[in-house]
């Protein structure tokens, strides 16, 4: 029996690292392994819940595993149990290792959040939305609001959207009339605050000007997208995915179609890969320019903000020319794309890119030389490399702290293996490092687009035919401007059975309290903005334990506390 499995491990491993991991898990868990298979770059191991923790106990440090995402899926009507899919990645090999853990109802799963700190939120989310119980850790509401009724798990298959509407009426609605806000002006600390761009709630605990700790509650824009997609068809979901985020929508739709194509092994024509890569890079350009403008605005340098967005406008027009819309491009379909790049558009593309290069270089030189900008970016909001690694952070946040992680290189997809480009990495870990990473990425993106345009192959832009198969697991990952986006899809006959979206800000928000400690209050907004948060993508909550635990030592009372005491 064990010989069969070791042979299987030999056969399925994609390199020394994956072999080491699989052998290690096998030696610890042996009989608890129920299945082992591989498709493409993903190795899947079905393992009993009792052994998962033991298997992962030492793996992290020894074998360079990066925790990418975890999806919980309700399969009680198919196989009688709930399943947890833990996705780990081996960057150096570009391999995904998925641990599929079947959980019979009522059984508690051991937590791995102390081994892989990044898994904290995923376990809470599985508990909130599907009712999975975890041993060895405190459980609290993460995704759902505090007044959500018990025993109502929205992502379960037997809960319909109408059921939820009947049972839950947000208490906020009745609170507003209770407060009678006509006589008194109260300034809410969130989630709707005139200075905030997206609904979020930050509480910064300050002593004088230094931030001691941070509390963040999110999920105000939780729209139930994953549940909605379960009632849609395959080719309708990319349009829903695109609307997950108003800045990085295309990466979500591409990630979704890649996950389905991975699951069903669909051959996507080369031209479609190229078109997708070009549009992805165009999106990266617009996103970084947007971020630069916002960062300069937070520093008070509005002139830089205006000029950055003036330059960005050219990118938006380019996007409209290539795809038909300034932001919600709507060109992704399972198996390819639906809009081609005609020959007569190419000179315009090249012209825009060269203009962009010149103007952006000029802008960055001027903006960084403004004394206030330089002084406030340098040395603030430091993220140490060790923390970045431990929390499995992604994107420019982690590349500014010395870790060279980029999905385009590590788990290459679309047409990126045809082009040569650098992944900019800076080691200081402060706000300036993250800024410079993004600046360099803009120039790299311009170069990538130029290479892709020159190499564009002819041919169809969509796969001719493909057959849906039920219950296949697919993973699609894309390097969004903010970091790694991972989608996990379980297929069904007409649409996805389960779709799990993991946006980069979900991972990166956990780093914000670390970056905020010891920072001046004035730099807090900039530090938060330096991870380029996209709360619409994220909708997660993080509550950090206060070091002191008491509120009396705070010099400034937060108004929201007064409200809750009175009300």
């Amino acid at each position, binding site marked *: 029996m064990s010989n069969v499995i070791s042979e299987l491990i030999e056969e399925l491993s994609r390199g020394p690292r994956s072999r080491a991991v699989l052998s290690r898990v096998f030696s610890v868990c042996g009989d608890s392994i129920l299945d082992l298979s591989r498709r493409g770059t993903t190795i899947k191991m079905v393992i009993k819940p009792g052994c998962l923790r033991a298997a992962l106990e030492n793996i992290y440090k020894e074998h360079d595993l990066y925790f990418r995402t975890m999806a919980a899926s309700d399969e009680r009507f198919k196989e009688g149990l709930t399943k947890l899919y833990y996705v780990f990645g081996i960057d150096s090999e570009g391999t995904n290792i998925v641990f599929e853990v079947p959980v019979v109802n009522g059984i508690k799963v051991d937590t791995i959040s102390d081994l892989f700190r990044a898994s904290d939120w995923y376990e809470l989310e599985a508990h909130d939305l599907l009712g999975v119980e975890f041993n060895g850790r405190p459980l609290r509401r993460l995704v759902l609001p505090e007044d959500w009724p018990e025993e109502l798990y929205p992502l379960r298959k037997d809960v319909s959207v109408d059921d939820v509407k009947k049972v839950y009426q947000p208490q906020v609605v009745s609170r507003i009339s209770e407060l009678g806000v006509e006589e008194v002006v109260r300034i809410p600390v969130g989630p709707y605050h005139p200075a905030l761009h997206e609904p979020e709630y930050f509480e910064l605990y300050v002593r004088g000007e230094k931030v001691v700790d941070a509390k963040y509650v999110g999920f105000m824009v939780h729209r139930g997208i994953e549940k909605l997609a379960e009632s849609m*068809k395959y080719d309708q979901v990319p349009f829903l995915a695109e609307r997950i985020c108003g800045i990085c929508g295309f990466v979500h739709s591409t990630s979704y179609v890649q996950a389905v194509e991975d699951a069903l092994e669909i051959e996507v024509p080369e031209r479609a890969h190229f078109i997708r890569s070009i549009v992805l890079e165009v999106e990266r350009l617009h996103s970084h320019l947007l971020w630069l403008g916002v960062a300069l605005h937070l520093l008070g340098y509005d002139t830089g903000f205006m000029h950055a967005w003036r330059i960005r406008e050219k990118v938006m027009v380019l996007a409209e020319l290539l795809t038909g819309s300034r932001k919600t491009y709507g060109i992704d379909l399972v198996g390819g794309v639906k809009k081609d790049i005609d020959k007569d558009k190419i000179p315009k593309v090249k012209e825009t890119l060269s203009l962009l290069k010149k103007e952006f270089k*000029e802008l960055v030189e001027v*903006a960084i030389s403004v004394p206030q900008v330089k002084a406030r970016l340098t040395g603030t909001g430091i993220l140490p490399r060790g923390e970045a690694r431990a929390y499995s952070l992604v994107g420019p946040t982690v590349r500014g702290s010395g870790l060279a992680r980029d999905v385009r290189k590590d788990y290459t997809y679309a047409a990126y293996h045809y082009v040569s480009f650098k992944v900019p990495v800076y080691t200081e870990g402060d706000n300036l490092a993250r800024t410079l990473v993004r600046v360099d990425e803009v120039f790299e993106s311009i170069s990538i687009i130029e290479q892709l345009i020159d190499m564009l192959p002819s041919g169809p832009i969509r796969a001719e035919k493909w057959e849906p198969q039920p219950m296949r697991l697919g993973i699609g990952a894309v390097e969004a401007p903010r970091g790694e986006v991972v989608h996990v899809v379980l297929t069904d006959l007409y649409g996805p059975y389960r779709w799990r979206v993991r946006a980069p800000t979900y991972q990166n928000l956990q780093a914000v309290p670390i970056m905020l400690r010891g920072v001046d209050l004035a730099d807090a907004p900039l530090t938060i903005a330096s991870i380029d948060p996209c709360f619409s993508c994220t909708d997660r909550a993080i509550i950090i334990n206060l070091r002191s635990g008491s509120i009396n030592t705070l010099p400034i009372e937060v108004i929201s506390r007064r409200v809750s005491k009175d009300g």
Partner: protein
Amino acid sequence: MVKFLKMLSISVREGTATRKYPFESPLVTPEFRGKIEVDPVKCVGCGACTRICPPKALTLSYENNEATLKYFVGRCIFCGMCAYVCPQKAITISKEFELATWELEDLYDETTHTTVKCRICGKPFTTVKFANEIRRRIENKVPEDLLNVCPECRKKLATRKIGSRVVGVSGE
């Protein structure tokens, strides 16, 4: 130190980037996707667009012996999938985006077709144009007495035929 003064020369060179919309025409490229137009002549009422429309802005309903294709701009996300899948190429994507109005009725566009009734149960199940289009596309290879029967009745007919062969019960 004084490099930031260069900003002045940049602004002088770039001038004003603002377009005086609505007093000036907006910047719209030839590729822009706006509201769709359904050609009532080419449309056969097959409903392919209604099946792919992600927000269900296009709906096909059968009432009063008519099939009505309703397009509700309020739900439309301007993705263009309807134009992409229409087998008759009856849907064109216009560049219209200034769609705000005070009257909700302005946001509904309708195309109606006459329906074909099932000869067995009498329920309307498809449109005359669609049935003719199918006849044309499959070059009259399907017998007429199946073309005017609705899917439920067709299932019953087929079952009875199989049943009659197996059990010997006489069918229709």
